[in-house]
């Protein structure tokens, strides 16, 4: 039986029926929770819920699970893999104490890393609801998560980028043109990753080969990924395709993932299959996951939880499979879930914090759609805040405009802005490559080469003679 929580403020008595309702009502406001009908009914109720939540012992989350153990394999994953020894130093804390502990000088990077297996997604979500934006940034920066495949992602002082050369018809020349543009702006160390216009095995293999050819020819210390369904990538591996990273969108409930057409055993199979290819040179992290607040509600699979708690549970799925990259696609889902720039910003910082606290290599697709109340200025703000917080990677796309997915994300220019203004660098292996290829005249001062580097000048001579694009 779910416990009821209550408190009195002035003459008013507040009751919260169960932990899920308390968590939801303690959440900073956003449209998705309003849509789900779980949002606090007043500003006062929200803060009261936060106060009640602050008094809860962290052990509550191990005993009062939000989605029943028998009904949800992600609850089982969280509970079964919880590490009591790692949790020991936190065991006596309330959620409010936990915030103080995270911010304290005791919680160094090493201490935080050691505590990870003892922290559940629900604990991370709960404490984030009490934290201001600056708290989320400060603690996230202390949480270092390093992964590797052909380069090393997540080192301190580094900000990597996914080069995203999407094209509405998967046109080879169009994709190659965007890849070239990105490389010459220093983008692509996290991954060169294409969302295919048509989601099938044959098309995916074609795109995998295209990227593999480029990576091999120019000896780029990076990895490729086609963002197709995990079962398609498994089939591509069987057919001998050059698969670096396996992609899947994941959510924080079993029902969400079933609506996406997979379960945990599918991901285990995929990780094992990609490992057998042994294509990494400096590391063996072979998975790329994407998440985003609102996906469980959108799939009607949220079990009455708020969207940020569902999102945090997705990181339990992610960390089980040792990903190279996890990307919260924060503004893509639209205004029904995150209404405007303010809500998108808050969600981006929460996701990055929760991911890093749980040990996930968190990056962020700093983005918005044209039906959201957001614009480029909101994205500049969030990009800068994430750079300050030590975000592992962001997207890079020509001129912020994804002409296939129809939304706006950070551009190649934007990533260079963030690197320059915050003194951040690309992954070390990739940085060396940028210097070697003369893409920058001076990597340390972020000065691009005004001339076309020799290796690429040669390639441009092989362009198709006529521009046959229908316009």
């Amino acid at each position, binding site marked *: 039986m779910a416990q009821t929580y209550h408190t009195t403020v002035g003459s008013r008595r507040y009751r919260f029926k169960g932990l899920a309702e308390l968590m939801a009502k303690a959440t900073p406001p956003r449209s998705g929770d*309003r*849509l789900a009908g779980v949002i606090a009914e007043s500003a006062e109720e929200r803060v009261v819920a936060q106060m009640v939540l602050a008094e809860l012992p962290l052990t509550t989350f191990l005993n009062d699970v939000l989605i029943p153990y028998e009904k949800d394999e992600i609850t089982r994953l969280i509970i079964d893999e919880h590490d009591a020894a790692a949790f020991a130093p936190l065991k006596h804390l309330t959620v409010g104490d936990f915030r103080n502990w995270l911010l304290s000088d005791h919680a160094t990077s090493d201490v935080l890393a050691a505590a990870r297996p003892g922290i559940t997604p629900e604990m991370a979500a709960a404490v984030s609801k009490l934290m201001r934006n600056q708290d989320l940034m400060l603690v996230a920066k202390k949480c270092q998560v390093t992964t590797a495949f052909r380069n090393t992602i997540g080192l301190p002082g580094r900000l990597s980028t996914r080069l995203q050369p999407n*094209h*509405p*018809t*998967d*046109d*080879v*020349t*169009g994709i*190659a*043109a*965007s*890849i*070239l*543009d990105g490389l*010459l702006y220093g983008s692509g160390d996290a991954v060169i990753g294409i969302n295919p*216009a*048509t*989601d*099938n095995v044959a*098309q995916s293999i*074609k795109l995998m080969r295209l990227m593999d*050819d*480029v990576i091999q*020819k120019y000896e780029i210390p990076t990895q490729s990924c086609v963002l197709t369904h995990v079962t398609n990538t498994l089939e591509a591996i069987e057919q001998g395709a050059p698969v670096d990273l396996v992609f899947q969108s994941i959510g924080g409930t079993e029902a969400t993932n079933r609506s996406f057409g997979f379960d945990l055993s599918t991901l285990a199979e995929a990780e094992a299959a990609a490992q057998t290819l042994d294509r990494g040179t400096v590391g063996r992290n072979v998975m790329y996951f994407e998440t985003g607040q609102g996906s469980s509600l959108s799939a*009607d699979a949220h079990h009455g939880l708020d969207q940020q708690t569902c999102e945090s549970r997705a990181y339990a799925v992610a960390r089980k499979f040792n990903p190279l990259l996890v990307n919260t696609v924060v503004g893509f889902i639209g*205004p*029904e879930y995150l209404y405007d720039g303010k809500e998108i910003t808050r969600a981006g910082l929460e996701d990055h914090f929760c991911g890093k606290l749980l040990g996930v290599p968190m990056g962020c697709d700093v983005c918005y759609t*044209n*039906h959201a109340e957001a*614009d480029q200025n909101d994205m500049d703000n969030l990009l800068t805040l994430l750079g300050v917080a030590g975000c592992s990677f962001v997207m890079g*796309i*020509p*001129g*912020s*405009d*994804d*002409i*296939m997915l*129809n939304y*706006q994300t950070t551009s190649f*220019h934007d990533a260079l*802005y963030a690197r*320059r203004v915050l003194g951040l660098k690309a992954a070390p292996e990739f940085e060396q490559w940028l210097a070697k290829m003369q893409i920058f005249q001076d990597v340390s001062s972020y000065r*691009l080469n005004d001339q*076309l580097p020799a290796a*690429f*000048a040669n*390639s*441009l001579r*092989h*362009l*198709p003679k*006529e*521009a*046959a*694009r*229908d*316009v």
Partner: protein
Amino acid sequence: MSDNESKESPPIVIANPWERLRAFTDARIGLGRAGISLPTHQLLAFQLAHAQAQDAVHCPLECDALASELTTALSLSQTPIHVHSHAADRAMYLQRPDYGRRLNDDSREKLQQAAESGQRFDLAVVIVDGLSALAVQQNSAPFLTALYRAFEHDQWEWQLAPLTIVEQGRVAIGDEVGALLNADAVLVMIGERPGLSSPDSLGLYMTWAPEVGLKDDRRNCISNVRPAGLKPEEAARRLLLLLVEARQRQLSGVQLKDRSEDNVLEGASGGSPQNFLVAD
């Protein structure tokens, strides 16, 4: 500034030597840079496109004009049925996707009346404004003309339910329409969220055995139907493949996709499948 000075001082804006690649894609490549930032004219071009896309979200569908255009273009014996979702207006539509997935009471009655005879149909085609009325307005007639032609040449006869036009609708509303019209399958043609370079993109969603409450894993999607994207004839060809497969196997969605869509897009760059970056 004299000529002499301009020769000596480096340019403020650096053009990209690969700018001519823009002939091969709509992507915003080769924009050049001031330092590492966007040059002013590129910044403003972007702002204009964003303003236009935002306007496209809010522009209403002209249902009567579309209905008469389709009646003529497809030689329909009956004008399309005009219905409305539970979302009263755009503001409500944007905040309550659940309202956009269901018909309002009047519309439900209207469709019940239209289906009084109890006749079953092979397919109901449902046109929905979605997030871009512009996409629906521009692409419906060309696409449906191509689709009807494809049906005529198919081995099977296709009994079509009356055409429906839905205002303030989301993809799932097609399931309710299809069920009310006694259709074995439903095709939803919907305006996709407008992009900066493509405020006019139409999406196609097909569901076998439509009923209220189905999830996305039961649908198959073909995206980006527009003059500068997937052409109507090609979209119709691919949709028919899906429909035939759905009819044979009596299902749609994730289980259908592997077999029916294993075609490789060759793209639009003049039939050159060669990647210039790796040509020797």
